[in-house]
């Protein structure tokens, strides 16, 4: 008798496990009739809202509060206008791991309904069939034309631009004013600034090289300036294996200057800690994008933050700010709640609510619905853009971008020379070309 009971229990356990194994498919099957049933329910009795879930994955852990508030607003709006009780699930993996988490979710068939992706990846994701064409949506009519161009492929609008910014080097305006300095136009201006700052007892640059993407910003800015200023066909030739980093070697003049005039223990300093230290006046300049302004202004609300373009040589024509779209929001074409997902995408650029969101995240205005006054650092950078001293972000293969970050770390600790960097970056570029 005991044996029979034991066997029966094993069988039960087995079935419950087997059910778990098939959980994925069963769930999808059952949710479809559920959904339709709810729709017909709401048709019969209008006061009974339909329930729905919307999964959104974003790489904005630093703006968690702002987006959560916005999601709540969206839920309220849907309930009031469409009689849908939406539950928005916001997922915010850290930006270091974001891409791998997203990739695993997409290829594993567990895709979020909406997700952020870097503008540079739009082409790849479009080829893989993970982007819904948003050209016909109302949001297409409000985005500024030059921003729209950065998120379109073959005339199709494939993502909602969210972070579009002009950025260069951040500087502490109070320290600059105290030392009687103004933003530099050439490399010798910058050298002089460093000297003056050191005389007055300030450290010129804040270095935070622990995360590889931060030192990488130096190559980002210098390459952008030099390529748009005097070597417009360099990138094109690099993609054809006809160019070399040897041609842009002079970017190391300013990189050397920055590293020689920076704070100590750079490898032990993360990006957030760096932003906080910069806010507390530990150094006068910081090669970091305006996205760090949130951390800086939270740490020190009285900070007078400015932006200047990084000079590379004696030609002011190469001294330019980066104008780019980085983070965008995409809609997954196979979303179970496609209609709702599109509503959310449109809501991001909503006539009434979008301005408050963009302002609270200190994003730059990028659509006609944005009518807020920009921050001082945004207008600094916009002044460069207005005078034509800006370049469109260079699209490098992401393996080359990663390699630049790694090599700059090594360059800082002194384990590679410029010659080796040139050689290894050329090799990385050719390897990436061979892949595509």
């Amino acid at each position, binding site marked *: 008798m005991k044996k029979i009971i034991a066997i029966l229990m094993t069988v039960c356990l087995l079935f419950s496990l087997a059910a778990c194994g098939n959980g994925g498919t069963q769930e999808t099957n059952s949710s479809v009739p559920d959904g339709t049933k709810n729709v017909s329910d709401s048709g019969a009795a209008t006061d009974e809202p339909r329930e729905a879930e919307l999964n959104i994955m974003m790489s904005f852990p630093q703006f968690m509060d702002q987006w959560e508030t916005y999601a709540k607003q969206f839920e309220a709006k849907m309930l009031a206008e469409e009689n849908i009780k939406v539950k928005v699930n916001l997922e915010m993996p850290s930006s270091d791991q974001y891409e791998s988490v997203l990739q695993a979710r997409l290829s594993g068939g567990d895709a979020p309904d909406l997700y952020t992706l870097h503008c540079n990846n739009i082409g*790849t994701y479009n080829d893989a069939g993970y982007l819904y064409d948003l050209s016909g949506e109302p949001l297409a009519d409000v985005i500024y034309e030059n921003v729209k161009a950065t998120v379109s492929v073959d005339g199709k609008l494939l993502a909602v631009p969210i972070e579009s910014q002009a950025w260069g080097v951040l500087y502490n305006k109070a320290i600059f004013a105290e030392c009687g300095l103004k933003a530099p136009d050439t490399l010798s201006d910058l050298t002089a600034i460093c000297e003056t700052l050191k005389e007055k007892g300030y450290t010129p640059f804040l270095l935070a090289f622990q995360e590889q993407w931060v030192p990488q910003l130096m190559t980002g800015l210098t390459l952008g300036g030099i390529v748009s200023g005097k070597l417009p066909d360099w990138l094109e030739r690099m993609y054809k294996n006809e160019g070399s980093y040897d041609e842009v070697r002079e970017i190391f003049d300013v990189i050397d200057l920055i590293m020689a005039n920076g704070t100590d223990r750079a490898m032990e300093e993360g990006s957030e800690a760096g932003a906080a230290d910069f806010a507390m006046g530990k150094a006068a300049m910081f090669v970091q994008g305006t996205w760090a302004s949130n951390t800086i202004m939270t740490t020190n609300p009285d900070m007078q933050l400015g932006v200047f373009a990084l000079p590379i040589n004696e030609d002011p024509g190469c001294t330019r700010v980066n104008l780019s779209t980085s983070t965008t929001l995409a809609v997954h074409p196979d979303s179970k709640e496609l209609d709702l997902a599109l509503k959310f995408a449109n809501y991001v650029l909503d006539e009434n609510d979008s301005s408050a969101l963009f302002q609270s995240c200190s994003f730059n205005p990028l659509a006609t619905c944005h009518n807020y006054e920009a921050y001082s650092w945004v207008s600094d950078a916009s002044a460069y853009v207005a005078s034509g001293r800006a370049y469109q972000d260079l699209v490098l293969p992401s393996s080359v971008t990663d390699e630049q970050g790694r090599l700059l*770390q*090594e360059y800082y600790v002194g384990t590679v020379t410029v010659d080796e960097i040139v050689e290894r970056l050329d090799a990385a570029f050719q390897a990436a070309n061979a892949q595509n």
Partner: protein
Amino acid sequence: MKNARKRNLSLLLYCLPALIVYLAFKLFPAISGMYYSLTNWNGLNKSYEFVGPSNFLELLTDDYFWDSMWFTFKYVIVSVIIANVAALTLAVAIESCRRAKGLFRTLFYMPNMISMVIGGYMWMFIFTKVLYYLADNWGWSFLDHSWIGDPNYSFIAIIIVAAWGAVGYLMIIYMAALQGVPANLKEAAAIDGANAWQNFWKIIFPLISHAITICVFWSLNSGFQVFDVIYTLTGGGPGRATQSVAINIYQEAFRGNIRYGYATAKSTVLFFIVLIVTAIQLKLTGRKEQEL
């Protein structure tokens, strides 16, 4: 006969749930990984091509991969020795304590209950803030090194954290083995005039050699797959200086060029290397065990 078969069947049924979980979450991914190593899948597209052994041929000339393999071997050798020596020493010390045995055991085991990712970030704070604080304010200038930025010191930092995390677990295994050594043997040796040192090497050590086999096997195996400690402490940097094979594979699969097929080829190679090394180790220590 019939009864025996019936019993076997019921035993099999008991094992089935665990077996199914094992097959679904361990064996199936491992085997499908080996299959992907023969394709050019990028981890994202819905389609891919079968490319035969070309991933493995490319691997032979991939310097970054072999650099990371060399680093991993260095790491394994140093960490296995340090973790095991420290764990055995601790186990013997705590066993010989008359009081507060439980307290020490709990204290040293504690790091094992924290995820190594959290442990890594804790140590990161110690290496980047606490040590500098001590160096700047207490004058302990011997602590003033670039613990994360200088490859030599970051290797030491990684070993310290890895050993800190592993020692507790190994110590428990050694303690269990020590408790299994019959007291009468130790007593007899003492009566025959053996001192504590001789007693340990001649009596206790041979009798706990099975625990050494287990502990070395475990630390070898986990050493070859080291990821979390390095990822949280240095991220493989500066540059690629502290990149273990697991980190190299991760970056190949999820960063940069996103070559999933090539990354699985790397993990297949790692699998066979770990298999061979641990097989040799088991054979050697097994023989030693019999000799002793």
